[in-house]
């Protein structure tokens, strides 16, 4: 069976992951955690990659930065893709670099035609360095910046048309952004060009600890919420079966508990497959 629902791989789950036999299972890792010279963690990923498809999810390419990705970063990512032979490589529609510092979150920007040129240039640089297409993920947004010349769905579709990249659709990020910026999550999901969606992310969120803001925060530390599951069904109703990740990066529960959420996504995809067939 091809890739259905996958899990973010955590080193403490290595033994359980290696012995899991759930159909369609795959794993995703943050690429940067393994862009190292050697050692046991890299060997653990190599062992995992011998049994399961792996998706390398970057959190550091800073694709929307005016400063292009560092050659050393690209060299290390290429070395990792050569070694792991991942099923997919992805990163975010955001920027992270400022005055020599790396900001470990995904910063927003006005979606101008110039920003599209910059981002397309960076995506092309990455794809040239890797010798393969990548996927670009929609981020969580917390403020409606002035100066946009196009909406996010249009920006991403145009980015894909220019560079040949695919889309990684994070349904939780759409839900969080729609709630924070007061637009329709359903309309945003319906605006996604289904044919270029290569992967889907599902994660949990939390209300801002400052209740005055009324914002939701993309925290990856909670189970996936019911409205996000509903949006997900709406999305795969249009895209058909796509590899779907259960993304959990904090307050990580035991492996079997994560696998229950994974199996829920797997069942929805299996139902979808039977409808399409």
């Amino acid at each position, binding site marked *: 069976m091809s890739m259905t629902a996958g899990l973010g791989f955590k080193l403490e789950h290595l033994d359980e992951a290696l012995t899991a036999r759930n159909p369609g299972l795959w794993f995703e890792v943050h690429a940067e955690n393994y862009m190292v010279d050697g050692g046991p963690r890299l060997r653990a990923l190599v062992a995992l990659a011998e049994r399961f498809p792996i998706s390398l999810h970057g959190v550091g390419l800073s694709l929307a930065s005016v400063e292009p990705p560092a050659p050393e970063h690209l060299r290390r990512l290429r070395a990792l893709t050569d070694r792991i032979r991942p099923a997919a490589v992805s990163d975010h529609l955001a920027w992270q670099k400022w005055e020599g*510092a*790396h900001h470990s979150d995904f910063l927003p920007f006005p979606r101008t035609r110039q920003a599209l040129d910059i981002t397309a240039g960076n995506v092309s640089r990455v794809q040239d360095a890797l010798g393969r297409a990548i996927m670009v993920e929609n981020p969580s947004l917390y403020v409606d910046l002035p100066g946009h010349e196009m909406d996010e769905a249009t920006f991403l579709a145009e980015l894909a048309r220019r560079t040949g990249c695919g889309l990684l659709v994070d349904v939780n990020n759409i839900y969080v952004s729609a709630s924070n910026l007061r637009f329709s999550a359903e309309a945003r999901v319906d605006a996604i060009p289904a044919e270029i969606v290569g992967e889907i992310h599902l994660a949990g969120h939390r209300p801002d600890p400052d209740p005055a*803001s009324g*914002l939701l925060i993309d925290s990856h530390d909670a189970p996936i919420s019911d409205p996000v599951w509903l949006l997900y069904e709406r999305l795969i109703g249009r895209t058909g079966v796509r590899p779907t990740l259960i993304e959990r990066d904090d307050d990580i529960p035991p492996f079997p508990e994560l696998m229950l959420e994974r199996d829920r996504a797997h069942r929805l995809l299996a139902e979808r497959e039977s409808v399409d067939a």
Partner: protein
Amino acid sequence: MLEAADFQQAFGAMLAAPDTVADSAIRRALTIHRNTASKAARDALFANFPVVAALVGEDAFAACASSYVDAVPPAEARLCLYGDRFAAFVDAWAAFAEAPYLGAVGSVERLVVEALFAADAPLLDPAVLANGIDPEAVLQRHPASRTAKTLAPAASLWLAHQPDAPEDALESIVWQPELILVTRPEDAIEVRVIDVPTRAFLAGTTLVDAAERAAGEGGDVAEIFASLLGAGAFAAQDQQGELQ
């Protein structure tokens, strides 16, 4: 239209000081982005300096780590390697003045991180002791091997906080400077306290040079070499004595 470069410059400056921004919606968004990034960097310090964290407690460590993140933010996305100056920062952190050994423990933890992610290389096989080794061949340190000297018994403190430490490990520590060897034989990190002759042996470029240095410090050369081979301090050699 605001140029992308100007926007990123202005946004970055606001991110460094969100409280100075008048617009409340932008201020809160900046604060959320700043909190998310700071938490990721702080979590990386907790992961990379667990013994310092255990020694001072979670809250005290978080305060020091947050200040470090502001002072020395990550320069790149590989947070698994973050914290190369944290030991010195801990050493200078006023709230830890009563525990002057913390910086030394931090420096051991930094060596452990370096060793954990260093390049792979076959170990020099202890069978060379029986089969013979060219005494003039270059003795190549394994890429994961690190040595240090600390003024406090930092390696002993580190060892006392490992899961397999004996119950009386902390009480039995002798308060003295330590020479430390960190290695990665197989998949696990090993930290050990070494003596002066062993440190002298490790400074040798060839086996004959190493032996002379260790003997000069009064060491038992055969015993030292066997011990270091067991620790995984050396990489295998090819015919040219090069790292394989």
